[in-house]
């Protein structure tokens, strides 16, 4: 297993190139290019803000910022999942012709999306300054939160990219799971809206910790509880370990099914 990890490290140049390729291809044919990365969540935010603050009369100060803090990490998570589901299958030709550690395909998606995610934090901060919200020193914790988010997402992505090779209809299931997960995670609504009797259920949702952290440090400007941080770190590490282990165990079988 150590060999495999070392080998993956040796292919870091390829991983870097694949990430660059992903990014280039995404923006190659668009006039606005990288601006889309920033515009996309802003548009989402405008739509959701109109719906929730004005039509559904969701009363909350700075709802737009509140929303973005949850939406950005969520978008990263859900895009990565849906893209990595097909990542091995769509590279079948390459996998059949050249020897490459196969984990680079889902991982390249994880990394190219994180570039987008970080870029889209820029308009968030611009918007906060524009709306007169003070940015607290707690944002220094963002790198740790990002690391958690990457590990958590990578674990699940590795798992489903491999599983989807063996069961091709898994990609449909993922769409449903992701939609359900979106509504079951406090993204468009605050945590304290959840009725007390369901609180326990929500506490079992790992995304509450992974995504919730962003809202704590950016929107509320406070440092989360120590327990909260520990749980999110453990959950991420656990997800990554399980995902990678599954991938590692089944990697050699992929070629027979692809």
């Amino acid at each position: 297993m150590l060999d495999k990890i070392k080998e993956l490290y040796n292919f870091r140049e390829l991983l870097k190139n694949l990430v660059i390729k992903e990014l280039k291809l995404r923006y190659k044919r668009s006039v606005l290019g990288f601006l889309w990365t920033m515009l996309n969540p802003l548009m989402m935010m405008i739509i959701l803000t109109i719906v929730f603050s004005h039509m559904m009369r969701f009363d909350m100060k700075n709802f737009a910022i509140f929303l973005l803090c949850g939406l950005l990490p969520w978008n990263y998570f859900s895009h990565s999942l849906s893209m990595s589901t097909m990542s091995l299958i769509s590279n079948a030709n390459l996998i059949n012709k050249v020897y490459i550690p196969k984990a680079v395909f889902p991982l390249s998606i994880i990394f190219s999306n994180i570039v987008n995610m970080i870029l889209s934090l820029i308009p968030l901060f611009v918007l906060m300054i524009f709306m007169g919200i003070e940015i607290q020193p707690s944002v220094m914790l963002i790198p740790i939160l990002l690391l958690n988010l990457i590990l958590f997402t990578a674990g699940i992505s590795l798992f489903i990219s491999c599983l989807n090779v063996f069961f091709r209809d898994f990609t449909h299931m993922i769409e449903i799971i992701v939609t359900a997960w979106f509504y079951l995670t406090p993204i468009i609504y605050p945590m304290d809206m959840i009725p007390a009797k369901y609180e326990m259920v929500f506490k079992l949702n790992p995304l509450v910790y992974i995504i919730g952290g962003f809202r704590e440090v950016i929107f509320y400007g406070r440092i989360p509880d120590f327990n909260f941080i520990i749980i999110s770190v453990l959950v991420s590490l656990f997800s990554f370990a399980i995902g990678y282990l599954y991938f590692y165990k089944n990697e050699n079988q992929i070629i027979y099914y692809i």
Partner: protein
Amino acid sequence: MTDNLAISINNVSVKYKLFHERSLTLKETAINFLKGKIDKYEYLWALKGVSISIKKGETVGIIGQNGSGKSTLLKVIAKILEPSEGKIQYNGKLSAMIELGAGFSAELTGEENIYLNGAILGLSKNDIHEKFDEIVEFAELEKFIDIPVKNYSSGMYMRLGFALSTAVDPDILIIDEILAVGDESFQKKCFKKLNEFKQKGKTIIIVSHDLNSIERMCDKAYLIKNGNLISEGHPKEVISFYRNLISRGEIEISNSPNRLGGGEVRIKEVRFYNSSGVKTDYFNTGDTLKVRIEYHASRRIDKPVFGLAIYSENGVHINGPNTKLSGFEIDFIEGEGVLEYIIKSLSLLEGSYYFTAAIFDYTCIHPYDYWEKCHQFTVLNSNINEKYGLFYMPSEWRRV
């Protein structure tokens, strides 16, 4: 593993699961599970206990029929497949050309693809940077390096692919069948590059159908049949052993059904005879070759047309005469009969040739029996001092 070996393949086997019924989806798996059905499969051994030691600096060829396991062996050596049993050890850096330009991304430019594919082949950015000009020059793409590769011609595509694979500067180069593609000048360039490799003392492993190239390039050849290594040694000997197996019918010339037709007339047998009337499959350049086509017509057939064709080993169609074209009209045939076709002086050079025989109706549209590549004959090295190409044409040199 000793130091003078480049690759040591030790008792390697590969087994595939051959599914009779296979659930490809979670849904089917779940339904089958509830019904108590399990996926039925048996193991298919694509390779069985193959051991090969390849010395540093050797050029070796792997030959065998389609489905013999030779491509599996190549994929195992290239690390694309993990062997089910056994072990392979390497001495040095490996680069495999299974398909030229397999990793190209159509939307990216030639330059971007060089960096991406260089990385796929395990090169660092600095390595690629250093070799960039060399790659572009070899691929002759100086003018086109800034346009997306989707706009490349297939020739440009392959040139770039080949240039990249060799730029890796591997110690061991693996090549699958790719030298059969590309135009002639490019092929020459590739062969020249491979010769440079050889001279630098690098190890080359080639899988090919083109026995002549194997014989010309390789120091050693391996014959794979049904996943087993059945012969190894000097290319000339292995290839002649292989040709022998084919002519004895122990190896099917083709796995595909190579016979079709209405069956009103059947070709019973095709035999080759030399000038003294002895049945043989071996001839020398310049010999007389008589072909006897024995047939059986189950009813009276008016105006049949007998045709035949000769193909070189790599599928070049050499000739294809028929009785109608030659003005040799046959009124009718019924029952058993023999037709003879005589080549007075065989101008083919050394090699194996496939023979196709067919009987058509007068319009040459409906085949009664069309037996593609039903037989093979071999032309041996003779007193003719020529060995390149397919043909001997009587000629002389003169200084003027």
